[in-house]
C-alpha cells in the first residue's frame, strides 16, 4: 500500500510541473501604429472592434486613438463624454511625464487604469472598457465604459414566493451584486472577484459578510476556485461541479437561488454567495439538507403556519421518493397489509391488466417523465397540446385499454404533483432518479428492500459534507440550539443564534433585550371613552 501512495504523489508532482506555464505577456510598443496593428491582427480584424483615430486632439501633442467593442460599451458614454472631452479640451501647456497624469485629470469618467501588457489590455477590452492609445507611450489607459443591452430585472421564474420581494437576479454580475448590496447596506459585506475560464474569462465574485462567515470556509472556497482551470464557465452550474465536496452523489451540495432576498438571508447566516457572470443563479454554500425544504416566505408567515408547511414539504419529499415503491411492495409482497375492502377493489382493477405492478409502474412513470421533459422543451404555443395528450394518455385511455390500473394512475399522479411541489428543483430532480431505484428494490424485495434502500440513503446523506459542514446537520449531528429552523420553524424571536456550523464566533443575531414580544402596555394602552356603551 505505501508504494501505491508514493506513485500517486510523484504523479501529482509531474502534473504540477506541467501546469507551470510561462505567463509573461509581451509589453506594449511606443509606436501607435504598431499597437493598433497588434490589435487588428490579434482580433482577426473583427468587425465589432472600433478603432477611432484622433488625429488632432489638442490634449495630446502626438497622434492618439481609442479602441472599443461595439455592443459591449455604452455608445453614449464613449461618444459624448470620452471623444468629446478629448477633442474639445484646452491644449496642454507642458509635456506630461506619464499617460496617467495626462489623461486622468481631464476625463470625467469613473474607473481609469493604466495598462502595460497585452494580456490585461485585451481582458479590459473584451469586458467593455475603452482603451486610449497615445503615440510615444508604451502604455495605454482603459476607461470603464461598460454598457450595452441587458435584460432588465424581472420577477424570478423559479422560487416564487407569495410574500416577499419581486426582484430576481439577471445575467449581469454587477446588477446582481448591487441588488444584494441594496438589501445589506453594510461595509462588512465583502466581495472578491476573479476570472475563471481560459477562453471565456468569466468573472466570478465571492461575496460574504466579514465577521459572520467563517474565514476558514472562505479560504477553502478561494483555494477550490483557484484550482479550477477549464476552458469555459457558461453558468454557475459549471463552477458548482468543480467546488463540490463530493461529486459522486445525486444530492446537491450547493444551493442556487434566483432571489436576492434568499441570498441576503443566507449571507446573514454565515454562508458565502458566488456570483457568476452570465448566470441568474447565485450559488450559496455551505448548505445543509434541510435547507432545500425551506422557502423565503417561511420567515414572513406566522410560525405555526410555516412549521405546518415545512412538515408538509417533508411529507411531499417522502411521497415523491417512495410513493410508487410502497404501492409495488404492498401489492406484490405484502397484500395482507392492505385493508380487505381496498385490496378487493385493487384486485378487481388489476384483473384485466396483463403486467405485474412493477412493470405497470415503470410504464406510467416513464411516460410521465417523457411528458414532463416534452413540456419543458416544447415551444410555449403548443405546450397546451402536451397537457391534453398527457391527460388523455396517462389518464383515461391507458386505463380503458387495460394497460394500467386506475389505482396506479392515482399513485403516479400524486407522486408527480408531489415532485412539483418540492420547493427546490435540486432535490426534486434527485428524488426523481432515486424513485426508480426504490421501485426496483421494492419489486425485488418488498418492504425489506425498501427499508434497506432507505438505510443506505440515510447513511449516504449522513456521510455527505458541504464545505466541511455535515449535510444532515443540525439533525445529525444533532445541534439543539439550531433545531429552531429545520423541519420546524420556531418563532423568529426564539431564533437567537446563527447556525453554529456556519458562523464562527459571531453567533448571536439578536440583542439580549430582544425576546418574546410581550408589551406590558398592551392592555392599558387603549382606554375606553367614558361615554362608550359596554
Amino acid at each position, binding site marked *: *500500500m505505501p508504494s501505491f501512495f508514493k506513485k500517486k504523489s510523484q504523479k501529482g508532482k509531474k502534473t504540477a510541473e506541467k501546469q507551470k506555464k510561462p505567463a509573461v505577456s509581451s509589453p506594449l510598443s511606443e509606436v501607435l501604429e504598431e499597437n493598433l496593428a497588434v490589435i487588428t491582427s490579434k482580433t482577426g480584424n473583427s468587425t465589432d472592434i472600433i478603432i477611432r483615430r484622433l488625429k488632432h486632439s489638442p490634449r495630446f501633442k502626438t497622434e492618439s486613438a481609442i479602441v472599443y467593442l461595439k455592443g459591449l460599451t455604452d455608445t453614449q458614454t464613449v461618444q459624448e463624454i470620452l471623444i468629446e472631452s478629448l477633442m474639445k479640451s484646452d491644449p496642454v501647456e507642458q509635456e506630461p511625464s506619464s499617460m496617467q497624469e495626462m489623461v486622468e485629470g481631464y476625463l470625467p469618467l469613473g474607473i481609469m487604469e493604466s495598462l502595460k501588457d497585452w494580456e490585461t489590455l485585451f481582458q479590459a477590452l473584451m469586458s467593455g472598457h475603452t482603451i486610449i492609445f497615445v503615440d510615444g507611450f508604451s502604455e495605454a489607459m482603459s476607461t470603464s465604459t461598460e454598457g450595452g443591452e441587458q435584460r432588465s430585472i424581472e420577477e424570478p421564474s423559479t422560487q416564487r414566493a407569495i410574500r416577499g420581494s419581486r426582484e430576481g437576479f439577471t445575467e449581469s454580475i454587477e446588477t446582481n451584486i448591487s441588488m444584494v448590496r441594496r438589501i445589506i447596506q453594510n461595509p462588512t459585506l465583502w466581495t472578491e472577484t476573479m476570472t475563471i475560464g481560459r477562453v471565456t474569462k468569466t468573472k466570478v465574485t465571492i461575496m460574504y459578510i466579514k465577521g459572520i462567515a467563517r474565514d476558514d470556509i472562505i479560504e477553502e472556497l478561494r483555494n477550490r476556485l483557484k484550482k479550477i482551470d477549464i476552458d469555459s464557465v457558461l453558468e454557475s452550474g459549471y463552477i458548482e461541479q468543480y467546488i463540490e465536496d463530493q461529486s459522486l452523489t445525486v444530492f446537491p451540495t450547493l444551493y442556487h437561488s434566483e432571489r436576492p432576498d434568499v441570498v441576503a438571508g443566507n449571507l446573514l447566516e454565515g454562508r458565502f454567495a458566488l456570483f457568476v457572470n452570465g448566470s441568474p443563479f447565485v450559488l450559496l454554500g455551505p448548505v445543509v439538507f434541510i435547507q432545500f425544504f425551506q422557502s423565503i416566505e417561511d420567515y414572513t408567515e406566522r410560525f405555526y403556519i410555516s412549521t405546518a408547511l415545512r412538515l408538509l414539504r417533508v411529507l411531499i419529499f417522502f411521497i415523491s421518493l417512495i410513493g410508487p415503491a410502497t404501492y409495488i411492495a404492498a401489492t406484490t*409482497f*405484502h397484500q*395482507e*397489509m392492505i*385493508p380487505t375492502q381496498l385490496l378487493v377493489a385493487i384486485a378487481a382493477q388489476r384483473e384485466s391488466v396483463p403486467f405485474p405492478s412493477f412493470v405497470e409502474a415503470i410504464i406510467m412513470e416513464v411516460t410521465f417523465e417523457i411528458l414532463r421533459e416534452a413540456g419543458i422543451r416544447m415551444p410555449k404555443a403548443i405546450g397546451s397540446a402536451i397537457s391534453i395528450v398527457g391527460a388523455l394518455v396517462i389518464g383515461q385511455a391507458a386505463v380503458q385499454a387495460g394497460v394500467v390500473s386506475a389505482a396506479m394512475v392515482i399513485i403516479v399522479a400524486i407522486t408527480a404533483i408531489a415532485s412539483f411541489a418540492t420547493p427546490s428543483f435540486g432535490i426534486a430532480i434527485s428524488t426523481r432518479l432515486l424513485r426508480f431505484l426504490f421501485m426496483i428494490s421494492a419489486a425485488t*424485495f*418488498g*418492504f*425489506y*428492500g425498501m*427499508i*434497506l434502500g432507505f*438505510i*443506505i440513503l*440515510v*447513511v449516504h446523506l*449522513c*456521510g455527505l459534507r458541504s464545505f466541511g459542514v*455535515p449535510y*444532515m446537520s443540525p*439533525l*445529525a*449531528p*444533532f445541534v439543539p440550539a439550531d433545531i429552531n429552523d429545520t423541519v420546524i420553524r420556531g418563532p423568529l424571536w426564539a431564533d437567537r443564534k446563527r447556525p453554529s456550523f456556519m458562523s464562527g464566533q459571531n453567533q448571536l443575531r439578536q440583542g439580549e433585550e430582544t425576546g418574546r414580544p410581550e408589551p406590558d402596555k398592551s392592555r392599558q394602552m387603549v382606554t375606553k371613552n367614558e361615554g362608550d356603551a359596554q
Partner: protein
Amino acid sequence: MEKAKITAYQLFALVLLFELGSALLVALGIEAKQDAWIVILLGMIGGLLIFFVFYRLYCFYPDCLPTEYLQKIMGKGLGKSVAFLYMLYNVYLAARVLRDFGAMLLTFAYIETPLFIANTLMILVIVYSVSKGIEVLARTGELFLVFIYFLAGSGVLLVLFSGVIDLHNLQPVLENGWKPIIKTTVRETIYFPFGELIVFTMIMPYLRDAKKIRNVGIFGVIVSGISLALVMVINISILGVDLTERSQFPLLSTIQTIQVADFLERLDVYFVIALIVGGFFKVAMFIYAAVIGTANIFTVTPPSRLSYPIGLVVLILSMTMASSFPEHLKEGVSIVPLLLHLPFQIIFPVLLLGVAYWKNRKHKKQGTG
C-alpha cells in the same frame, strides 16, 4: 483508530439502538412467566454493574482502544492474542445476530427466499455503512433513534386505542418467589442484551467529551432497560403469558392485535422496520468493533479496508454456524451464555480491571513519591 469524534448524544443513540436491536423482538426473560419485566429490570441493574467495569477500565486508559490497553495490561504477546479472541467474539456475535435476523425475516415475510440472499443484502448495506466510519454510523443512529421512537410512540397509542390491554395478565406478581427470577436474570438477561455493551468499549475513546461517558452509559442502559420492560409488559398484558411464550415473535403478535376504526390494522410494517433497523445497528456495531480492533492489532490503515473482508466472514459464518434454526436457537440458549458471554463479558473484564488497578496504583505511588 479513526480520526473521528462523536458526541454524547450520538453515543447514547447508538447504545439505545444496539440494546433494543434484537432484544425488542424476542420474548426476553419469559422463563420467569409474567414477571419477565422484573427480570429485564434486574438484568438492567446487572448491566449497569458490568458497564461500570468497562468504564473503570476506560478511565485508566482513556485514549486507547481496548486492543491497545489489553497489551499494556497483559504484555504485548498475550495482550494481542486476547484482543484477537475478543475480535473473534465480536465476529461470532455479529454472525449470530445476522442469522437470527435473517431467519426471523424469512419465517414471517419471505418464506421462499433463501437465507443466503436475505443475509447478503443485509451485510452489503452494513458493510457499506461500516466502511463510512463511526461518525456516519453515529449520525445515522441519531436519525433512526428519533424514527424508531416515533414509531414506538404511535404504536403504543394505537395499542391503547385498540383496547386490548388487560393488566390482569401480569398478576400475580412473584407467583413463584424470587428464585426463578434471579435464575433467569443470571442465565439470560444480564448477558443479552446488557452484557453485549462490551462492544462499546471499542467506541468510548471516540467520544468528544470524555466526562460525559458515565452518564451516557448509565442513561442509555436505563432507558433501554425501561423500554424493553415496557414492551414486555405490553406484550404479556395483551397476549397473556402462554401466548407470549409460544409466539415466535411476541411483538409481531402484539402489533397484529391493533385494530382502530376498522382501517388501521395489520401494521406488520412496524415490526418489519423495527426488525431491520434494529438488526442493522446491532450487526453494524459488532462488525465495526471487529474492524477497528483487528485493524488496530495488525496495524492496518485505513481500518475501513477491513470492513469488506470481515463482512464476508460474518456472512459465511452466519450461514454455516448452525445447520438449522432450532439448532441455532439451542446453541444460543444453552451454550453461548455460559461458554462465551460469561468469560468474555464478565470474567475477563473483572480480572483485567483488577490487574489494571494494581498496576496503576503502583505507578501512582511512584509518581507521587
